[in-house]
C-alpha cells in the first residue's frame, strides 16, 4: 500500500482481478474424486457410478448436476457423429512477454499440453448439428482454465471469420477463468479482436448462439460470450464478470445463494434460456431453423 492511500483505495486497486482462483478452487473441489468406478456427486452427495454419469452426457443421473467436460467431449456431444472437421489447430502459444512468475510461461504451457493432450485451449471446426451445418468452437477448461491467450483469441476470430465467409451459424461454447495473465496486454486485446470480428459477422447477418457453461467469467464473459444473438446457459453454471471472491472482498459481505448462477442471470435478463445438456442439440437446431 502506498503511503497516503486509504484502505479502500488499496482494495480498489486490486479490482482488476479476474476470478481465476475462485474458479480453480471450485474445480479442484469438484474434480478431486478418486479415479475409481464410483464418485460422490457434488450436487447431491450421492455415490454415483462414473460410467453411468458419463453415459448420461456427464450429468448426474440422480440430481442433474452438470459435470465440467473438456472441449473434445463437448464437440462429441454436440456434433453429429463423424461430422466435425477440426480447423486452425496449427496455432501454438509463444512467450511474447518472456513472462515468468514462479514458473516460466513456456513451462506452464508444456505442462498443460502433457496433462491434457491438447495444444491449446480452444477446439474449433465445421460440424453438423442434427443435420444443420454450423461453425463450432469450444473453449477447453482443462487447458489453463480456458484462459484466453493469443491462440484462443486467434482461433475464435478465425472461426468467426470462417462462419462469416461461408454464411454458417456460429456456436461458441464458453467456459473460462478469463484472460491469460501470462500474455497480459495481448490477452486483453483478444477481447477487442473477437468482438470486432463479431461486429462484422453481425453486419453480415450471421446467427451467433453463445452457450455459457460452468464457469464463464472475466474477459471471456466481457467480450464474445455475452455477444450472442441468442445466449443459452447450462443449469447452475457460474457466469459473471468479476469472480465471487473479488466481489466478497470488495463489498465485504456474503453473496446471496445462487448469485451469478445461470438461473440468476436469466432472472436478471442476461441470458435467454437455461438449457439442460440433454436438450442442447435440439434447442440449437430449433433456433438455427428459425433464423435460416
Amino acid at each position, binding site marked *: 500500500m502506498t503511503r*497516503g492511500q*486509504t484502505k479502500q483505495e488499496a482494495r480498489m486497486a*486490486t*479490482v482488476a482481478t*479476474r476470478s481465476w482462483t475462485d474458479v480453480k478452487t471450485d474445480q479442484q473441489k469438484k474434480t478431486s474424486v478418486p479415479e475409481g468406478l464410483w464418485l460422490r456427486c457434488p450436487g447431491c452427495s450421492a455415490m454415483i457410478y462414473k460410467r453411468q454419469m458419463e453415459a448420461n452426457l456427464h450429468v448426474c443421473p440422480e440430481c442433474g448436476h452438470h459435470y465440467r467436460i473438456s472441449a473434445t467431449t463437448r464437440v462429441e456431444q454436440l456434433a453429429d457423429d463423424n461430422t466435425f472437421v477440426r480447423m486452425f489447430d496449427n496455432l501454438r502459444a509463444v512467450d511474447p512477454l518472456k513472462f515468468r512468475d514462479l514458473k516460466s510461461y513456456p513451462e506452464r504451457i508444456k505442462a498443460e499440453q502433457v496433462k491434457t493432450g491438447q495444444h491449446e485451449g480452444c477446439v474449433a471446426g465445421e460440424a453438423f448439428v442434427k443435420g444443420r451445418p454450423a461453425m463450432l468452437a469450444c473453449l477447453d477448461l482443462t487447458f489453463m482454465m480456458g484462459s484466453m491467450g493469443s491462440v484462443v483469441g*486467434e482461433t475464435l476470430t478465425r472461426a468467426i471469420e470462417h462462419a462469416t465467409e461461408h454464411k454458417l451459424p456460429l456456436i461458441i461454447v464458453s467456459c473460462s477463468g478469463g484472460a491469460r495473465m501470462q500474455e497480459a496486454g495481448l490477452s486483453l486485446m483478444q477481447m477487442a479482436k473477437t468482438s470486432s470480428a463479431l461486429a462484422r459477422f453481425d453486419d453480415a447477418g450471421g446467427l451467433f448462439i453463445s452457450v455459457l457453461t460452468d464457469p464463464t467469467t472475466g474477459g471471456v464473459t*466481457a467480450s464474445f460470450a455475452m455477444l450472442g444473438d441468442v445466449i443459452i446457459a447450462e443449469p447452475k453454471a457460474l457466469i459473471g464478470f468479476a469472480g465471487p471472491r473479488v466481489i466478497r472482498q470488495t463489498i465485504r459481505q456474503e453473496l446471496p445463494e445462487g448469485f451469478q448462477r445461470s438461473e440468476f442471470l436469466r432472472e436478471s435478463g442476461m441470458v435467454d434460456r437455461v438449457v439442460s445438456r440433454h436438450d442442447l442439440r435440439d434447442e440449437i437446431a430449433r433456433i438455427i431453423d428459425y433464423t435460416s
Partner: protein
Amino acid sequence: MFYQLDFEQPIREIDERIADAERREGSRDVEVPALGGVVSPQPEREGDVGELRAERDRVLRSLYRKLSPWDTVRVARHPNRPQSRDYIARMARDFVELHGDRRYGDDPAIVTGFGRLGPHKCLIVGHQKGRDTQEKIGCHFGCAHPEGYRKALAKMQLAEKYGLPIVTLVDTPGAYPGLGAEQRGQAEAIAVNLREMSRMKTPIVSVVIGEGGSGGALGIAVADRVAMLEHSWYSVISPEGCAAILWKQANEQTNAASAEALRLTARDNLKLGIIDAVVSEPVGAAHRDHDQAAELLLSWVVDQLDELVGVDRDELIQRRHERFRALGSFEELQPKPAEAG
C-alpha cells in the same frame, strides 16, 4: 502528500533548498510572494534559485527516466495526478456535460460530454476517480458500473450521428465488482462497447491517462489511435491482482515482480503494438504541472484528430478493425504434406 513516493525524497531536499534560497532573496525584496517552490525566478537574480531549479529538473528527469514498473504504477495512482475532469477543464472549451444512460442511472465514474478541442467539435468520455473523499466514494474510485459503460455508448452513438469525433480518457483500476454491477450486466455492457466501438462510424482517439485496468479500461478504448501518458499503466490485471494469483500473495516484493512481468508500462505497450504512441508528461510527471500535462495531451490529441477527421468512414472502420485484428502473438505451424494431401 506531495512527496508520497519514496524515490522522490531527493527532490524534497532540493525543493527545501530552493525555498530557503527564495526566502533569503525574498528578505531583500519584499515583492516576492512567499509561495515556496512555485514562483518562477526573475531574470535578474537567477543565480542561486535558478541553479537549484535546474538541478531539480536534472534529478527529476533522471529519476523518472529509470522508474521501475511498480514505481510507474505508483506514479499513475498519485493523489495529485490530473484526472479526466482536470484535463477536460484545461483542454476543452464550451464543455457540455451529458448525464445518464437513460436506462438505469448516471454513473459519475464515467464523465461524458461535448467539448471543443482545438478546432474540433468532439465528444469526450473519461473515467473519473474522484479527488476528495466524497467524490472518490461517489465515483467508486474510478470503477464504473454497467450504467457508466452504457452511458458512454449512448453518448458515443450520439456523436456518431452528428459525425463528431470521440476522445476517451482511460483512468480506472478496473470495472466495479459488485452485486448490482453483476446483476445489471457488467460483462454485457463492456462486451457491447467493444463490439460497437469497433464499428462506430466516426474517429475515436483513446489515451490512458493514469490506470488502464483490464476490461474496464478497454470498454472505452477501442479506438483508431490509442496512446498512453508516459507514466501510466495498462494491462489485463493490476499488479496486486496478478501477484495474489500467481505469486499467491500480494506484498511490495511480489507486486513489483508482477508489475515487471506484466509489461504494463507505456514503453512496453508500445513495443507490443498495443498502443500507437506515448504522450510525454511534464518533467517529474503530470502531478507536478497539470497545465503543462493538459497542453501536451491536447496537442497530441488534436494532431490525431487532424489526421483522422478527413478519412473516409468505411476506410476508417476497416483500419480500426485491422489494427485490433493484428494483435496477438503466436506461432503458426505449416501443415505437414501428408496431412495436407
